């Protein structure tokens, strides 16, 4: 990008064209440069320290007196006079290519495995562009995950963004790996790819995913972007963008069905807060910046389908709710952007139920158009509705039982208790390796309802009762 403005009144520190030596201030991952030429907002920056190590950065704030650059690889080892900055005059881009599948990269898309990256097919701005809402295709293809509580009650749709709200120590990684392994579209396009972005997670977690992909032989179809717990925290702010840029290329230019796993979004948000605080911005809730919603939306909205293109991006972000609090800004804002959520319950996990998905707060917003006749089975919508309604009554009955004792319950309430146990132990609960078809899942749902008298089932039609109830 050439500029007309004459480069007048510059400091002697100008080395060549757009390169300067000497920063005026370094604070955390931020470097302040004075007396530069007019630098564009959001421009890519290449930084070299006195030892000759290259780092990548981006312009966060620009004015005619000072330019603020954030360095994704951190600032340790930099000195004020020894910092060499080169403004590239273009936004941060990623050289994307299909060959990135099967490779392990860092948050910026540079190889971690030592080997050189293949030549890119296209150079894309990592920030992406908003999709025109009129160009979107409404997602409605059912993905069978083989997990009853998801397929039956919070159905995953191709092109959906469905986060897992979990807590520390809960098996969200197992569930994500199980979904990645078992997900299939029935009778549909099967050119699957997985893009995995790890932000601030431990090496073991990344290892778990790699092993799990390896075991099932899909590793060649997985691109991993790892920014682990010991990498600079600032790198996490760019990792999901890099990963989604590749995902968009694979989905919309190469026609693949891409599943993007982002873990852990909580770490991403904390990095944002760190930068925001450093810059002295006015915080909103719990110190998180006021733009957290917009910032998360920029990531989550990079999913879906586009009319006339074959591929799709399905997002499965994982976040650990601080203190298991679903009202915390991170899960809260996420829930407002994503198309539903899968919520884990520590108490259920404590009782040995895997996956410990609490059906009541969990929700899939796209489910309504992806289930029913011709997609799953005709009775699915009413059955799911009935299971929710009945299970929510179980909670009331259990509360009552804890007050007046189980013996005092009416016989109807006893039936509800039995239904609740069956539902949790047989329907929700399943093995890490168990892959149930949607028919099995639905029949199991009817089996659970079999514990209740037919008069209690008002969300299903008489015809459905006749066909499925008590069989």
């Amino acid at each position, binding site marked *: 990008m050439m500029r007309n403005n004459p480069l007048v009144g510059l400091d002697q520190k100008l080395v060549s064209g757009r390169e300067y030596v000497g920063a005026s201030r370094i604070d955390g991952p931020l470097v302040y440069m004075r007396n530069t030429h007019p630098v564009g907002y959001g421009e890519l920056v290449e930084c070299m320290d006195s030892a000759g190590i290259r780092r990548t950065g981006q312009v966060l704030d620009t004015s005619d007196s000072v330019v603020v650059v954030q360095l994704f690889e951190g600032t340790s080892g930099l000195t004020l006079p020894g910092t060499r900055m080169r403004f590239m005059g273009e936004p941060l881009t990623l050289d994307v290519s299909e060959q990135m599948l099967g490779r392990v990269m860092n948050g910026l898309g540079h190889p971690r495995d030592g080997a050189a990256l293949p030549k890119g097919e296209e150079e894309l701005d990592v920030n992406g562009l908003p999709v025109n809402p009129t160009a979107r295709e409404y997602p409605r293809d059912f993905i069978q995950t083989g997990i009853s509580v998801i397929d039956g009650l919070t159905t995953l749709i191709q092109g959906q963004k469905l986060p897992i709200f979990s807590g520390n120590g809960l098996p969200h990684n197992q569930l994500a790996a199980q979904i990645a392994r078992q997900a299939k579209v029935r009778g549909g396009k099967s050119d699957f790819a997985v893009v995995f972005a790890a932000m601030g997670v431990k090496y073991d977690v990344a290892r778990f995913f790699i092993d799990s992909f390896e075991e099932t032989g899909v590793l060649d179809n997985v691109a991993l972007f790892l920014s682990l717990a010991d990498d600079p925290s600032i790198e996490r702010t760019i990792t999901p963008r890099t990963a989604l840029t590749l995902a968009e290329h694979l989905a919309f230019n190469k026609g693949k069905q891409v599943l993007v796993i982002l873990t852990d979004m909580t770490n991403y948000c904390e990095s944002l807060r760190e930068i925001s605080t450093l810059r002295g911005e*006015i915080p909103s809730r719990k110190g998180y910046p*006021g733009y957290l919603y917009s910032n998360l939306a920029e990531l989550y909205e990079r999913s879906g389908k586009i009319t006339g293109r074959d591929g799709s991006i399905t997002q499965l972000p994982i976040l650990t709710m601080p203190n298991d609090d679903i009202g915390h800004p991170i899960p809260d804002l996420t829930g407002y952007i994503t198309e539903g959520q899968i919520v884990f319950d520590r108490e259920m996990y404590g009782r040995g139920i895997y996956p410990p998905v609490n059906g009541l707060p969990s929700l899939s917003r796209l489910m309504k158009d992806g289930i029913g006749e011709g997609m799953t089975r005709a009775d699915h919508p009413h059955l799911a509705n009935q299971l929710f309604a009945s299970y*929510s009554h179980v909670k009331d009955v259990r509360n009552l039982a804890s007050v007046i004792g189980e013996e005092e319950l009416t016989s109807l309430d006893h039936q509800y208790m039995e239904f609740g146990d069956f539902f949790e132990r047989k329907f929700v609960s399943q093995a890490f390796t168990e892959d149930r078809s949607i028919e099995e899942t639905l029949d199991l749902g009817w089996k659970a309802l079999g514990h209740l008298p037919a008069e209690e089932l008002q969300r299903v039609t008489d015809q459905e009762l006749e066909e499925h109830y008590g069989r």
Partner: protein
Amino acid sequence: MQVRIVGQVKRVNGPVITVKGITDAMMMELVNVGEQKLVGELVKLSGNEAVVQVYEDATGIAPGDNVYGTGMPLSVELGPGLIGTIYDGIQRPLEELKEACGDYIRRGINRPSVNRSKIWRFEPVIAAGQEIGPGMVIGTVLETERVVHKILVPPGLPGMKQKARVVSVAPAGSYTVEHIVCTLDIQGAEVPLSMLQRWPIRIPRPVAERKSLRVPLITGQRVIDMLFPLAKGGTVAIPGGFGTGKTMTQHAIARWCDADIIVYIGCGERGNEMTDVLREFPHLIDPRTGRSLMERTILIANTSNMPVSAREASIYTGITLAEYYRDQGFHVAIMADSTSRWAEALRELSGRMEEMPAEEGFPAYLPTRVAEFYERAGYMKTLSGKEGSVTVIGAVSPPGGDFSEPVTQHTKRFVRCFWGLDRALASARHYPAISWLDSYSEYVDEVSAWWDQKSDGMWRKSRTEIMELLQKEVRLQQIVKLVGPDALPDSQNFILEVCTLFKTAFLQQNAFDDVDRYSTVEKQMRMLEVILTYWHLGSAAISKGVTMVKIRRMKVVQEIARMRLTVPNDDISELDRIALRLERSLSQLGGIYDEK
């Protein structure tokens, strides 16, 4: 656009740009920043510096870039062709942007908001030599099969105080929107008028007078129409945490309410939701006119990943379009989903301008802005003497579902109707999850005359009765939670029974069921009567000694529970038969005791 440089960029901080060297720029002027001509609005002037908020991503803008003035405030274009179109927050037509630059929205592109080449059939209603005032009708255009668009004399023409003489009017014929259809003589100067006009979005359009609200906006949603009615020209807030069904409720109202025009603003929400509306509305048929719903709908989509400052503007863009149709004598309903995203956009911009924050980082002027927005609603006598209304339905997304946060609280101060969504109801898939305990409507008194006329004076009475029962139920539930239902006598247990039936058979409404998604006024009234009959006759039977278990087991109770799904809107005679069977069954049960 004329080339007038008003200053140079000094600093770029996200969507907030400081400009130096300002000479003659004015407040709220629409400006273009840099050689890419990014659209922005001048929001602050101080000395020779100004602050501009840009409505597009500012990447690449550098200090020293020129800022160009346009000499006018941020405005919308008004004219035939608005209906059925989908716009972004600053009224750029998204369909045309897609044709211009593909599936992604690129920066610095612009297309006229109102199609310039489309031909409209114009019919004049005035003749040369007549006197005509601001806001009065020049002629009509059939915009869609159901909307007769009136071409108005724009209010606020320079020099036009009172009426002006019509010099000439175009004869009936087919014209584009830019064709001159009328020439006025304003203080000796001839002023040509086309079908196209502009209006600044932040200024309310003038009206003759505000009228009091008397007519309900019928939504076809039972819990709303019967318990918490909304008046035409009224304001309502729908707060609810994520997943409680704000958007679903807004969609249901947009589909089935009896407004003439719908303006639906997707403000900082999901892209797929707008796609859903776009995909679905053209195929949905309005039960009143038999025409496609898209023929009365304008969509404004500023999804969450589109620039934040355009999100701030989208609310004003929407309400200005609504006012324009109100001035033509239409009843307009505007849905803003969600006003919290708009408030957050204010907060983000305020933060970047380094203003002193008030509660939770929101700027201190938040309540003023909220009030200004909701006050643009109303039932008006327009300048042309017709009646029209703008009803505002605003969704609020309180963080953590906590209604004590600033946006919900300030909104509550300025709306008169409140439909609180309840997470427990949503979890049990009781939709619409409008809580009958938190919600209220101040319009009950105002619209009861209308309703009572429709229902032989029964509406007010029935509503009060069922609300009382629901209140009693809460107290009884507390007892049940402690000691179990068996401890209550049948007369009280029956209250629980009736309320449970009322909730499943009446309050719940399945938006995806072809019959249940919408209920006519008559069906709603009759359904409520059936349930109240069950209550009256049932409690009479219990006082005679019939046990509740027997009443509950009557076959007709199952029929009542399913009547919302089984009785079609156009033939509700089945409800009479259900009521008859109910009376018979109960008198049979009670009869045994009468003989004794």
